[in-house]
């Protein structure tokens, strides 16, 4: 899961990034309203965690701006302000969830996964694709009921392809889900992760659409391999 974290407080942001990475999330952080408004024009993400009190503006203005621009990705407001009218205003401005500081890390991650799941049109916490089962909230993957160990970026790549449901994703979209704003990524890093995923889960899992990108392959047969 690729998370955009909009949080001006360094202490809270560093704790959140560390905690979310433990849950196999790829996190990009910005600290001002201006950076937040620009972030979604630069890369794609699955979900946004938005703080309201930003030094150069209000998070709600950023949210309204995104919604006006047509960004419909799930947004979770994370704030220390607990007045009912503030919560109501936040939800009315287009937020999908509202969590108060301080929070339980596991609960926050569960809420983020629920938001992404609903945005992808799924109702179950597990994604099944033939013999492949993936539980995004814990980062667990099973193939033919055998647990498969994936790195954080491999898992993020797999989750992105599964949520796309066969839709072709460009290389840039996939890189965004892996590295976000990290411009220093090597050009063949994506190919390396795809290679590892194919090796661990089968060549048919990811189909290359030449000149366009990649998409999820047909479901792997649920029967155990011979």
């Amino acid at each position: 899961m690729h998370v955009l974290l909009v949080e001006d407080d360094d202490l809270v942001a560093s704790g959140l990034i560390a905690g979310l990475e433990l849950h196999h999330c790829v996190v990009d952080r910005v600290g001002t309203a201006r950076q937040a408004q620009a972030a979604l024009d630069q890369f794609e993400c699955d979900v946004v965690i938005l703080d309201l009190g930003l030094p150069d503006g209000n998070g709600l203005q950023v949210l309204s701006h995104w919604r006006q621009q047509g960004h419909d990705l799930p947004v979770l407001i994370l704030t220390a302000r607990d007045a009912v009218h503030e919560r109501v205003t936040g939800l009315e401005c287009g937020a999908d969830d509202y969590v108060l500081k301080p929070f339980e890390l596991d609960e926050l991650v569960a809420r983020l996964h629920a938001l992404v799941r609903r945005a992808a049109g799924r109702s179950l916490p597990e994604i099944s694709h033939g013999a492949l089962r993936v539980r995004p909230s814990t980062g667990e993957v099973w193939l033919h009921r055998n647990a498969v160990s994936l790195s954080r970026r491999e898992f993020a790549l797999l989750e992105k392809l599964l949520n796309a449901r066969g839709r072709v994703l460009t290389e840039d979209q996939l890189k965004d889900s892996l590295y976000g704003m990290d411009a220093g990524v090597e050009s063949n890093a994506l190919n390396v992760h795809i290679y590892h995923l194919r090796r661990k889960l089968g060549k048919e899992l990811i189909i290359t659409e030449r000149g366009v990108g990649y998409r999820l392959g047909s479901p792997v047969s649920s029967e155990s391999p011979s």
Partner: protein
Amino acid sequence: MSLRQRLLASLGLSFVALWLLVAGLMYLHLEQQVSRTLDQRLAASATMVAGLIARQPERLLASPPSPLLVTPQLEGVACQIRAENGDIILQTSGVDNSLLTRPELGFSTRQVGDSSWRLYTLRQHNHLITTADRMTERDNLTRSIILVMVVPFALALVGGLLVLWWGIQRGLKPLQELDTELNRRQPSNLEPVTLHQPPVELAPIVGTLNNLFARVRRAVAREQRFASNAAHEFRTPLTGIKTHLEVARRVTGDRQQHALEQAGIGVARLQRVTDQLLMLARLEQGRDLEQEQSSATTTTIAEALEGLAGRERVEVQGVNADCQVAAPATLLAVALRNLLENALKYSEPESPVLLSIERTATTTPAQIRFLVRDQGWTTDASSEPPSPANETGGHGLGLAIVETIASQFHGTLTASRNRWGGMDWVLLLPASIAG
């Protein structure tokens, strides 16, 4: 007892008592006047008879030896003409003889049988002329006259009372409206009271009430903002601590060490917020204020800048050893540091923050003016200029402390948007007499 009942009782009773007193006096006066008028009529009748005799005395001399009896047209009246020797020359019929025998000259009252009579006797040459009215008729006449007076009087009294009741009802209607409005409203409702066409006398009350409501509304809003800011400033480091500790529990080695260090930074921040809150509480209660009421700006600014994150962005101007402020050095340093932290946080990371100090001699006493100026953000997302009470202005507790310090030491804190899109915070404090 309600005001309306009190007014109705006092005015109504006074009204009735006054009218009854007037009625009593009128009754007495009228009775005397009627009696006097009837007496005058009696005397006039006797005089008229005397005039007739004087014109034609020969007709009386030619009268027969027996008295001439005449029948009056009205009952209860009598008349007698008597000669000097006691012979009755003329008399009305149907009158008891004892009524008119040996009459006294002038007015007199005589009881005959069951009836009482009023007599008037006049001497005319050699004749005594007596006229008489029966008192029963006179009393009936008096009663009729008084009755004629009483009916309109009573109607006027009842009408007056009704008008009084209506006037009081109508006059007190705005008060009743105010009473209903205040009784109907919820305790949490602090909206202004609105009356339909309030009288001039009620305008100060309604105005005072509405001013009070407005002050309470502002105070409640300020308290809510402050509570919200305080909650924000406690919860933010608490969130950092909690998240880093959760991470520390799940990782090992350097990552665990780093998470614990971050949690430690959070604890230090939390401690600072707590200290600030306690300081604010002490300042608001006026306790523990330092006795030393003068501080040199040079040392105070050095103290404010010491260890300040972003110190390199602060440009100080106008520091003068002669500038002495009539406030304790420690508190002044806290105030300046809070303003600088606020300016550093709410402006571009690389932009300068100006701190200038100036002595203004135009006021009495002289004041020291501290200006903290930031340049805001290149693209300003916020449109409303912040105020000390506005959360977008930054550190809620910090600015609240600066405001409290300013008010405790007879100074002011003001904020305005400057031409660079940032904020100018001006702290004015009196210069110390020594300075």
